[in-house]
């Protein structure tokens, strides 16, 4: 297979896996409320693939997921996730390269970082709009992470399968 085709195949597989996560979120998780919050898969779909890839590629993929999120979800800032997810993706990729090897534990740490980043940014936006709610924001972020954390396991399995499948072709 030509290198260009391999790259195309790899990212198509990643995109399809991410699309599956978005479908699960839209069709199932959005209708479930646990501990007062909806499980939120989007940050996981941005950071877990980044843990299996180089920082540049991981950041670019997280950016793409961020753009899709901004197109799908309502929010105060039209580019909210486009700004936060690449940062989270970069952090996740660096984490897997330096501290923890890609796996469930690394995904969990990357997810915590992604939720922390998005939560902080949400609080910052609220504060900038004169509606500061640091305490409520932090509590919501914590609950969001706790409710979503168990889902890092199947998502890591899914993206690991994609990573291994594409690595075989390299």
């Amino acid at each position, binding site marked *: 297979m030509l290198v260009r085709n391999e790259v195309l195949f790899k990212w198509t597989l990643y995109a399809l896996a991410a699309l599956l996560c978005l479908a699960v979120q839209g069709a199932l998780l*959005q209708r479930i409320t646990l501990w*007062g*919050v*909806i499980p*939120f898969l989007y940050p996981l779909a941005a950071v877990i693939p980044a843990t299996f890839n180089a920082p540049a590629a991981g950041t670019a993929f997280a950016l793409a997921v961020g753009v899709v999120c901004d197109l*799908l*979800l*309502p*929010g*105060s800032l039209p580019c909210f996730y486009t700004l936060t997810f690449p940062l989270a993706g970069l952090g996740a990729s660096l984490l897997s390269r330096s501290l923890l090897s890609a796996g469930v534990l690394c995904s969990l740490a990357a997810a915590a970082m992604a939720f922390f980043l998005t939560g902080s940014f*949400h609080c910052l936006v*609220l504060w900038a*709009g004169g*509606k500061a*709610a640091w*305490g*409520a*924001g932090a509590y*919501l972020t914590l609950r*969001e992470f706790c409710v979503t954390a168990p889902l890092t396991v199947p998502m890591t399995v899914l993206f690991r399968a994609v990573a291994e499948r594409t690595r075989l072709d390299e």
Partner: protein
Amino acid sequence: MKDFFKHNGLWVLFAAAVISVALATLSFFAGASSPLVNGLNVLASPFRAMCSNIADWFNDKQNYYRDTTALQQENEELRRRVAEMEEAVRQAESDSEENKFLRSLLELREQRRDLTDFETARITEHTVTNWTSSLTLDKGTAQGVEKGDCVIDGTGALVGIVSQTGMNWSTVLTLADTDTSLGAQVFRTKDLGLAQGDFALMERGLLRLDYLPADCQLLSGDLVVTSGLGGYYPAGMVIGRVQEVLPDDSGAASYALIAPQTDPDTLTEVAVIKSFDIVT
């Protein structure tokens, strides 16, 4: 053998005729069947019974198959009819609900002559993230829905404001969302204020009524409606009722907690106010 019949054929024929006549005579005069007939029939009886049983078994199977096929067809037909009836009942329930909603909307239209154009819409999705309180409707720009349009329920209570529109969809930010902000008036005291969403209250479905006059005398249960100031939204739309009056952070002024009149989570159908007359 050939020679035997050639020489004795006549005798054999004669003997056979005599035996036949004797048997016929015996059968005629005897009350029961002759021993020969009886013997033959006794031998044939089990075979006859077996043949009869086999024939019965085949007949049974044939009947069973025919009956089962007929029952299956009947069952299928009944199932189809039940499904059709269930569909009709569902449709009737949905129509009845829509009819009720449209009736209340008609009453509202008669009461509120300033609301000139409505568009009814179904809610296709409730809140999609934990940081916003929104609804997605099945009507959009193709039906004339625009950003900033008010969304109300069947009783005329305000549900939210359209924040985003597409061709056949639109997103509504509910009253409790942090981005919602609209001029409000306390119906009893005529005090003006600003009703706005607060993140800390959003989960409880409440909103704040800020910038109240220092001398305002609000009571729990006071009705809060839209002020209509600025002409962005129609005046007099019910927002909710005062739940509690609290001092703000500075302690110099106070704000009220408002419980919206309608719970967006329980709604399935709403109306979008596409145009209204500004009442002065």
